[in-house]
């Protein structure tokens, strides 16, 4: 039976609808820079804590790229951090104590490990992928323990003294140079991360996260995109590791530990994954809380974190945030 005789008009003329748009990439990093500098200026006796916050924030930011943006749940991210830390530490000890060159070495090491392990890991998904990330980081940990001459084993790597930053600024005992150094690297890499996430590449990666089948049907080389993203995240984690090694002048086995991977994941979830700013917030809040609670019984701290985690899953702040944004109008 013929139901159609004329083609109805397809166009339904409407008022100009809102189009999705991204905020300029420099905005959030500038806010971060200003906030960070203010914190350093207002709390000169807490510079050590602030430096630790900046470094942790960078680690959790790199994890957000993998977990929040690409949707790859990993419990082995500490491997990339530790790789950067040990590379920078060994470089300072054996080759040259310049901090910026050491930072580049740490970045290269983190990126290199991500490139190598990603080639294997990214062939798998879901629970299998998660377990394999654990395997890779545990293997790296065992290798680091074995290679005692290089890494110092369980005693840690120490005895290296960092040279002056940019040839002029010595790392002082109060931590002023260290905190500005860490903050600057964090802000710079945050800006890079923002640009990547807001780029067509970032859109494709987010598309892979939301619906892999759809992306394959659009012609996206899924594996290649994820591999590049994982490598970039590895570079950033490596940078965080290098900063940690340089500002603490020591690298321990805990920088490769499962506990660090899990902690970073907890921080990311508490702050909200996928938007980059959540990583910074989660890292800051968690580090500050941990610092103030450090004197208390560690078991009580565990109880608080556990309860918070359960609460956050039941009443997801990310969902609440997204709901609020949608009511306010506009989707990214």
């Amino acid at each position, binding site marked *: 039976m013929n139901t159609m005789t004329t083609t109805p008009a397809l166009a339904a003329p409407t008022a100009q609808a809102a189009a999705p748009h991204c905020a300029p990439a420099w905005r959030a990093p500038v806010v971060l820079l200003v906030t960070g500098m203010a914190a350093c200026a207002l709390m000169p006796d807490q510079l050590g804590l602030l430096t630790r916050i900046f470094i942790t924030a960078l680690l959790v930011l790199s994890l957000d790229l993998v977990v929040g943006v690409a949707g790859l*749940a990993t419990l082995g991210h500490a491997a990339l951090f530790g790789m950067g830390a040990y590379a920078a530490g060994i470089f300072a000890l054996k080759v040259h104590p310049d901090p910026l060159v050491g930072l580049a070495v740490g970045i290269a090491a983190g990126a290199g490990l991500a490139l190598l392990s990603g080639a294997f890991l990214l062939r798998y998904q879901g629970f299998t992928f998660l377990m394999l990330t*654990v395997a890779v980081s*545990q*293997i790296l940990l065992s290798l680091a323990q074995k290679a005692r001459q290089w890494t110092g084993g369980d005693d840690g790597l120490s005895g290296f003294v960092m040279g002056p930053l940019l040839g002029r600024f010595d790392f002082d005992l109060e931590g002023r140079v260290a905190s500005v150094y860490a903050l600057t690297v964090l802000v710079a890499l945050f800006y890079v991360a923002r640009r990547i996430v807001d780029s067509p590449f970032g859109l494709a990666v987010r598309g892979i996260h939301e619906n892999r089948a759809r992306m394959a049907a659009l012609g996206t080389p899924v594996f290649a995109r994820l591999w590049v993203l994982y490598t970039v995240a590895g570079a950033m984690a490596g940078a965080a590791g290098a900063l940690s090694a340089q500002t603490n002048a020591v690298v321990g086995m805990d920088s490769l530990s499962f506990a660090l991977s899990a902690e970073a994941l907890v921080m990311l979830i508490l702050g909200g994954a996928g938007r980059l700013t959540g990583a910074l917030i989660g890292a800051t809040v968690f580090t500050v809380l941990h610092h103030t609670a450090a004197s208390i019984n560690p*078991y009580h701290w*565990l109880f608080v*974190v*556990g309860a918070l985690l359960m609460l956050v*899953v039941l009443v997801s702040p990310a969902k609440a945030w997204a709901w609020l944004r949608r009511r306010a109008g506009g989707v990214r």
Partner: protein
Amino acid sequence: MNTFLNILIDGLAYGMVLFVIAVGLSVTLGLMRFVNLSHGAFAMVGGYCAALLTREAQWSFWVAVPAAILATAALGAALEALVLRHLYRRKELDQVLFTIGLSFVLIATTNALVGPQVQMIPLPPLLAGSVDLGFRTLPAQRLLVIVAGCGVAMLAAWTVARTRFGIWLRAAVDHSGTASALGIPIRTVQCASFAAGAALAGLGGILGAELMPLEPFYALKYLVLVLVVVAVGGMGSIAGSLAAAVLLGIIETASKYLASDWGSLFFFVAMAALLAWRPNGLLKR
């Protein structure tokens, strides 16, 4: 030759402990697709109950152990019915994080109630000695562990293959929608399987108390090992868990004996290789 046999026996025992703890997790993962990272806590609770009942309450070992297992089963059932089943539809990551949080809370609670010291389970005289098998002597405890592990494997296989509950379980795993439409009580199956898994984990905690000391962080410390067994063996596969646990247990024990400064390297290399070769489980294609 002696070392080889030692490795085999210790490895087998270790593997059996891992199997008994892991099998419950494998079944719930395969059945409910629910990633329960608080499973290690059940092993811990079972061990703790047995330790406290034998030492503090002065109960006989042979009474305390079943009581501890039942208590763990009850805890598992209660948690499943009240809390965890609301998370079955959530994303994997949400389940992971919630159950990690739950583990943290259970660890902190255990410490608050009993303190951080290691809990020993005093063995009755029958199990404290050695058994002469003719070609060599074995600590009785090791023999018990191996026998118990085989027993659990056979009981689980028989339950799944021959009983009505087993049929319900398999139907629910394959297609819960159809199963419930056919009148199979899915909720009962889920809760009962969860409780059974918790009970077995408790048994594993008791059996493995020598190899894996009972202290509050137990819940997380050995979780990775259990997850590895489940991943390599394949979710929902009892035979797979057994094969994976025994294989990995022997590899880990061998590496402890022969190459201890390499740490757990070989365990994880073996794990990665096995998982890469058979991502869906050892015995599945």
